[in-house]
């Protein structure tokens, strides 16, 4: 595997101009790596054996985890609640505007129907219908109303 050690070792073997970088007789430092060319930075590697290192059980870690999870859930719930309110407001807004548009449409329709009713009740039309039905206008004093309290004057009898 191409590692820095191997690379530096190769270069160390070669040396500048083929001259080995390390002079014969110099003590071998197992951790010292070959210096970078024209650099004063020396890299050392150190082998650390952590096999005897055992992680101590942390009684609070579990709680912290659950706390984080709980907090995250709570945050999610809050965001959902806020989002739901907003979405619900928007949906209600849609419904409200639809209802308002429907109200305006119904008001316009009512006016159109009022107009149609007025056309149907025009005296000329009623006169024409009366003639077709062979109806005659009663003379004065010949009409008797049963219930005088009704504003539309219910007619019960023509003498």
């Amino acid at each position, binding site marked *: 595997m191409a590692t820095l050690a191997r690379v530096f070792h190769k270069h160390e073997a070669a040396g500048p101009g083929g001259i080995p970088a390390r002079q014969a007789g110099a003590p071998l430092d197992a951790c010292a790596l070959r210096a970078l060319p024209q650099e004063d930075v020396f890299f050392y590697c150190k082998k650390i054996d952590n096999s005897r290192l055992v992680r101590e059980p942390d009684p609070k870690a579990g709680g912290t985890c659950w706390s984080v999870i709980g907090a995250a859930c709570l945050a999610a719930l809050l965001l959902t609640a806020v989002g739901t309110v907003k979405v619900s407001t928007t949906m209600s*807004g849609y419904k409200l*505007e639809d209802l308002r548009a429907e109200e305006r449409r119904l008001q316009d329709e009512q*006016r*159109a129907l*009022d107009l149609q009713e007025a056309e149907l009740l025009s*005296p000329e039309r009623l006169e024409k219908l009366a003639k077709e039905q062979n109806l005659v206008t009663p003379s*004065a*004093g010949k009409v008797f109303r049963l219930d005088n309290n009704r504003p539309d004057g219910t007619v019960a009898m023509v003498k």
Partner: protein
Amino acid sequence: MVERRLKWLAWIVVAWGASIFLKLVSLQVIHHREYVNLARARQELVVEISGPRGTLFDRNGQVLAMSAPTESVYINPLKVPDLGLAAQILSAELQLDRAELFATMQAAKDNHRGFLWIKHRISYDESQHLKSLNLDWISLQHESQRHYPNGTLAAHLLGGVDFEEKGNGGIERALEADLKGVPGKMRLLTDVKRRGIDSRLASEPRAGQPVTLTIDAHLQFVAERELAAAVESHNAVSGSLVVMNPNTGDILALASYPTYDPNRPPQSSDIKNRENHAVSVPFEPGSVFKVITLSAGLETTKLRPDSPIDCHGGVLKLPGRVIHDSHGGTGVVPMETAFAKSSNIGAIMVGMRVGQENMYDYMRRFGFGRKTGITLPGESAGRVRKLSIWGTTSLASVSMGQEVSVTTVQLAQAGSVVANGGLLVRPRIVLKKGSQVQQPSAPVRVIKADTAITMRQMMEGVVLHGTGTGARLAGYTVGGKTGSAQIYDYAAHHYTHSYNGSFLGFAPITNPAIVVVVTINGTHGTAGFGGAVAAPVFKVVAGEALRVLDVPKDLPDDGLQVASVVPDVSDLADADLTAQGNILVDGDEEAPQAANASATQPVGPVAPAVPAPPDTRPRVPNFSGMTMRAVLAEAAAKGIAVVPAGSGIARMQSPPAGAVLHEGERIRVQFSR
């Protein structure tokens, strides 16, 4: 070196952050308003909320005029994919000429016009068809359209509106400020699909105020029908009719003929039809004006209904003119007979006793020469010449209803004075504005109450045995006066053989509920006199009005006596057709010189009344203080018809004791305990 690099790196990061921050400041602070407006323009729709024009109702709540929403079609010719297809679709849906529409659309596209109206105010069905096509290049704009659902009914009263729904006549124009609606605006927040999420009112709409008129739609219809029939059957030019409540001034019907349909926009051909003859067109009233002459006579002189009046055998010579009675004339007759027979000379005799100043005063008191104040535009005040420019024979002319011009509504107002006991009540058209009831104007005393009662009795005589027998009603006592005024030709300076036939009447006599004035303009011959042409119209309209108003009868139904001979309806005012320049036109005080020197003298006081021959006519007995049994027994013995009212002892009677009892006349006796 490292530190330098780190510093450079740090500065680059800082610069990057600063640029982001500056951009944020630029977007959210400096250009905030611009982007908010941009967002609003994209997200918000401005929706117009209609402020409909106020509805007009009759007194019973029937709709006479109302505005209904409608839509107008427009397109953007530049965005239409196929003009030919578009023209085909639109012409089929909207009943338009395809070739013409295509040419218009093509021309608009060639001129790079992005907006083109196709059709204004389409029907509801057409609108629904277009919407169902779901074509995005067809756009609809909401508008409002005024409708008159009863067609020509009350056209002159209602008037009409122009294309902007602004009143251009009648009540629509007179009450424009109250009827006009103001549309509002609403800002609608929309999503990407243009569906509304939220809305905010930008300006409040204001609907026009509904107005309730005093007229009764059914009565109005009957009045217009009868008036049209009378004008057409007599080949007259025009006519007008007013039905009025004499106590409140409410106009129950106001008809003018010819008429028009306010649903159609004004055309040049129907300008004349839009004239309101009842309010805006004055005319010489003729014999109808004798009501004012005799009222003034009763008030200012010692004349009574049975005072003898010398009618000079039907011929009276005045300076520069000769007055004739159209029915051959009579000698000395009671004033009530001269009135019933509509003697011009009799009226002149009364007028001369009254005098110029009093005559002028009473003409003004009765409301002539000034507007009634009715809520209609273009009202004419008529014409009453100033006293200072009255000519030598002006008093004579005015006494018989000439040299004065009046409107039909003024005659109704004057008739109401007699009908309601002597009070001048202003005619009114508007009953309510919104829910606020309009109060009638305060009445003004014009004549005394007993003068009014006496006039009512004399006017009943006109209908019973005078020129107005055509106005008799079954079951009701009726009083009235006919008029047949010759129409003056100002170009030729003489009177023509065309007449204004009128009838002014009220019913019932005891407590008049309605006053009806009918005028038919431009009639011809004796069949065009007021008694022949206007009185029958009064009969039908008044009969219907009394039925609709549920006025109790004051006569049995079989009390209507048919005259055994053809009634004499001739009441022509001034039969002097051959003289030239015998009527003084405004400002023209020239009077043709008569050969007789005495004719140049101003008319002096009337000569003392000629002693009347012994009067052997039956008289009304005195029932005062008698019980009902005794009254009925005496009446039966004498063959007199009595109409009793109340119970107990006889307290009042009409006609009064000692008055001349005419054939067929009934005596009303009031009993009380």
